[in-house]
C-alpha cells in the first residue's frame, strides 16, 4: 500500500510542472495543456484522498472536474482557433492587445 | 493467482490472439470473395483452392515489401502510429465474452479473457485511443492526403462514438451493469435486439462508421485521398493498419453480438442449463456457445461486406450531418423511450 503522501507529492510535482509550463511556454495551446495537467494533478489528489478516506466524494469531484475540463477545453480551443484566425499566431506574447 | 490460472489465462490470450489473426486473414479473403460474387466475379482463385492461401500470400508479400520511411516524416510518431492502432484493436477483445464456460478436467474456465465490471467503457476507451493512431499516421506522414485522411478518421470516430455510446445506454439501462458478461446473461431469454430495435439500428450504423467501412469509409476515400492516412505506409506498417482495421471489424461484430444479439446464447434454448454427463457432451455444451458466437459474428461481418458491395460512399458533410443531426437525437430519444418504458415496467 503506497502511502497517500506519495500520491500527494506526485500530484504536487505534476501541478508545479504545469505551473512552470504555463509560465515558461509562449504557445497558447501548450499553456492550455499545462492547465489540463494541473487539473489532472488535482484529480489525482482527489482520488488519493477518496481512497485514503474511504469516501466517494473525491471521485464525484473528479467527475465534475472532468466535466469542467471538457467544457473548458471546448471553449478554450475555440478561443485559440478564433485568435489564430485573426492574428495568425498562437504566441501569447504577440497577443497582447485587449482588442483588435 | 495460482500457476494453473495464470497459464490458462495465457493460453486464452494466445488462442484468442491467433484466432483474431486468422480471423482477420480470412476476413480479407472472405471480403474479396463475397465482393467478387456480388459483382459477378470470382474473387481470388489462383493461390490455393479458390484462393484460400491468398491471405498468406498477401501476408508474405507485405512482409517482404520494402519498408519505406518517408523522408520528411516525423519518424517516431510515424512508426508509433500503426502500433497504437493495432494494439487498441486487439486489446479491445479482452473483455468480449465469446462463450460461457469450459469445464474440462475439473477446471472451469470462463471463455473470456477478463471480466471487468466496466467492460463496455473499456472498449470505448480503447476505441477512442485508436483515434490517435489514425491521427498520428496522417499527421506524421507529412503528406496532405494522409493528413486529410487522418483528420477525417479522427473526426468521424469522435462524432460516431457519441451516438454509439448513447445508443447502448438503453441496453445498459436494461442490464443495469457495464459488464459484458452481465449484458450477455441478461439476454438469456430475449435478445436486446427485440427490446432495443432502435438502439440496435443506431449502434449498427455507428459501428460501421467506427470501423471506417463503406459507406462511411471517408478516411481512406481512394478517389479523393488516394489511400487516406496510411498512404505513405508500406510493408509491415501498412500490414498493421490493415490488421487493425479488420480486427476492429471483428471487435465491433463481437460487440454487436454481445450487446444486441445475445452473445453466445441460442434463441429459445438455454445452453447453460444443459448439464450433460459425458465428457464429449460437456465439451459440446462448452464449445457450442463459441460456435453460436462465431456464427453471429460471421453474420455481422458478412453484413458489413454486403454493405460495402451495395452502397456508395457518403459525402463528408453528409456523414457529419447524419451523425450529429440524425443519430444523436435518435439515440437520445431511445434513452428517453427506454427510461419511460422501464418506469412503466413495460420492458
Amino acid at each position, binding site marked *: *500500500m*503506497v502511502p497517500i*503522501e*506519495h*500520491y*500527494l507529492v506526485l500530484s*504536487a*510535482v505534476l501541478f508545479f*510542472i504545469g505551473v*512552470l*509550463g504555463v*509560465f*515558461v511556454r*509562449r*504557445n497558447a495551446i*501548450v499553456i492550455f*495543456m*499545462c492547465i489540463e*495537467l494541473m487539473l*489532472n494533478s488535482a*484529480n489525482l489528489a482527489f*482520488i488519493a484522498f*477518496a481512497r*485514503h*478516506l*474511504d469516501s*466517494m466524494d473525491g*471521485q*464525484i469531484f*473528479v*467527475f*465534475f472536474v472532468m466535466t*469542467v*475540463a*471538457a467544457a473548458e477545453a471546448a*471553449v478554450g*480551443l*475555440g*478561443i485559440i*482557433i478564433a485568435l489564430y484566425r485573426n492574428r495568425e499566431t*498562437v*504566441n501569447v*506574447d504577440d497577443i497582447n492587445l485587449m482588442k483588435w | 493467482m495460482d500457476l494453473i490460472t495464470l497459464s490458462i489465462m495465457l493460453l486464452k490470450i494466445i488462442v484468442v490472439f491467433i484466432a483474431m489473426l486468422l480471423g482477420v486473414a480470412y476476413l480479407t479473403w472472405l471480403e474479396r470473395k463475397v465482393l467478387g460474387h456480388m459483382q459477378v466475379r470470382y474473387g481470388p482463385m489462383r493461390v490455393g483452392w479458390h484462393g484460400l492461401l491468398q491471405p498468406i500470400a498477401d501476408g508474405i508479400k507485405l512482409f517482404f515489401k520494402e519498408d519505406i520511411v518517408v523522408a520528411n516524416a516525423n519518424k517516431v*510518431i510515424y512508426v508509433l502510429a500503426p502500433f497504437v492502432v493495432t494494439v487498441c484493436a486487439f486489446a479491445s477483445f479482452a473483455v468480449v465474452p465469446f462463450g460461457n464456460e469450459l469445464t474440462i478436467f475439473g477446471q472451469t474456465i470462463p471463455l473470456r479473457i477478463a471480466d471487468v*465490471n*466496466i467492460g463496455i*467503457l*473499456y472498449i*470505448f*476507451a*480503447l476505441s*477512442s485511443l485508436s*483515434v*490517435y493512431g489514425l491521427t498520428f499516421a496522417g*499527421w506524421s506522414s507529412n503528406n496532405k492526403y494522409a493528413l486529410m485522411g487522418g*483528420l477525417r478518421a479522427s*473526426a468521424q470516430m*469522435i462524432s460516431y462514438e457519441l451516438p454509439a455510446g448513447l445508443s447502448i445506454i438503453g441496453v445498459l439501462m436494461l442490464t443495469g*451493469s*457495464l459488464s459484458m458478461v452481465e449484458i450477455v446473461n441478461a439476454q438469456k431469454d430475449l435478445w436486446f435486439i427485440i427490446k432495443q430495435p432502435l438502439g440496435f439500428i443506431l449502434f449498427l450504423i455507428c459501428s460501421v462508421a467506427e470501423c471506417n467501412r463503406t459507406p462511411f469509409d471517408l478516411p481512406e476515400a481512394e478517389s479523393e485521398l488516394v489511400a487516406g492516412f496510411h498512404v505513405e505506409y508500406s510493408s509491415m506498417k501498412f500490414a498493421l493498419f490493415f490488421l487493425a482495421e479488420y480486427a476492429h471489424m471483428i471487435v465491433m461484430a463481437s460487440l454487436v453480438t454481445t450487446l444486441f444479439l445475445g452473445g453466445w446464447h441460442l434463441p429459445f434454448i438455454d445452453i447453460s442449463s444443459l448439464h450433460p454427463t459425458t465428457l464429449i457432451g460437456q465439451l459440446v455444451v462448452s464449445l457450442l456457445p463459441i460456435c453460436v458466437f462465431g456464427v453471429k459474428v460471421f453474420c455481422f461481418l458478412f453484413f458489413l461486406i454486403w454493405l460495402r458491395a451495395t452502397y456508395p460512399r457518403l459525402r463528408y458533410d453528409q456523414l457529419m450531418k447524419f451523425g450529429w443531426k440524425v443519430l444523436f437525437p435518435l439515440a437520445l430519444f431511445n434513452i428517453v423511450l427506454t427510461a419511460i418504458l422501464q418506469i412503466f415496467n413495460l420492458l
Partner: protein
Amino acid sequence: MEAILFYGLAAIMVVSSLMVILRKNPVHSALFLVLTFLCLAVLYLLLNAQFIAAIQVIVYAGAIMVLFIFVIMLLNLESEVASKSSHGLQKFWAMAISIVLAISFVSIMTVRVFTGGKGDFSPEAVNAAGNSEVIGRLLFTEFLLPFEITSVLLLAAIIGAIVLAKKKL
C-alpha cells in the same frame, strides 16, 4: 506489486509531463500529455476508481486531447522559438516554484495532517456494489444539484465553443 507499479508510473508521469513543457513541438507535448493521462488512468485503477479511470481515458485521452491535437494540426503550428523575454521570468518562476515545492514536500512528508475519519465506502464495499453503480447513485442523489448545474455548464460551453469557432454564424 502495487508499489512498483506506482513508482514506475510516477516516474513516467513526471518525466513525460516535463517533456510536455520542454518539447518545442506542440504535437510532441500533446503526445506526452496523453501518456501522462494514460498513466494517471492506471493510477486511478490502483486507487480502486475503475469508473474514473475509464472516464479518464475516454474523456481526457479520447476526447479532450484529441481536440487539442486536432487544433494543433489544424493550425499547423511551427515549433516554438524560445523567446528571450521569458528567460529572466523563467529563472524567477523556477526559483519561486522550487521554494513552494520544497515547502509543500516538507509539509506533506512531515506534517501528517491527512488523518481523519474513514467514510463508508471502503474498497470492499464499493467493489461489492460496483464502482460505477456507487458513483451513479451518489450523482443522482447527493450530488444531483451539481450534476444538473454541470449540464448547464456543458450547454454553455457547447454554445460558446460554436460561437467562438464558427467563422460565420
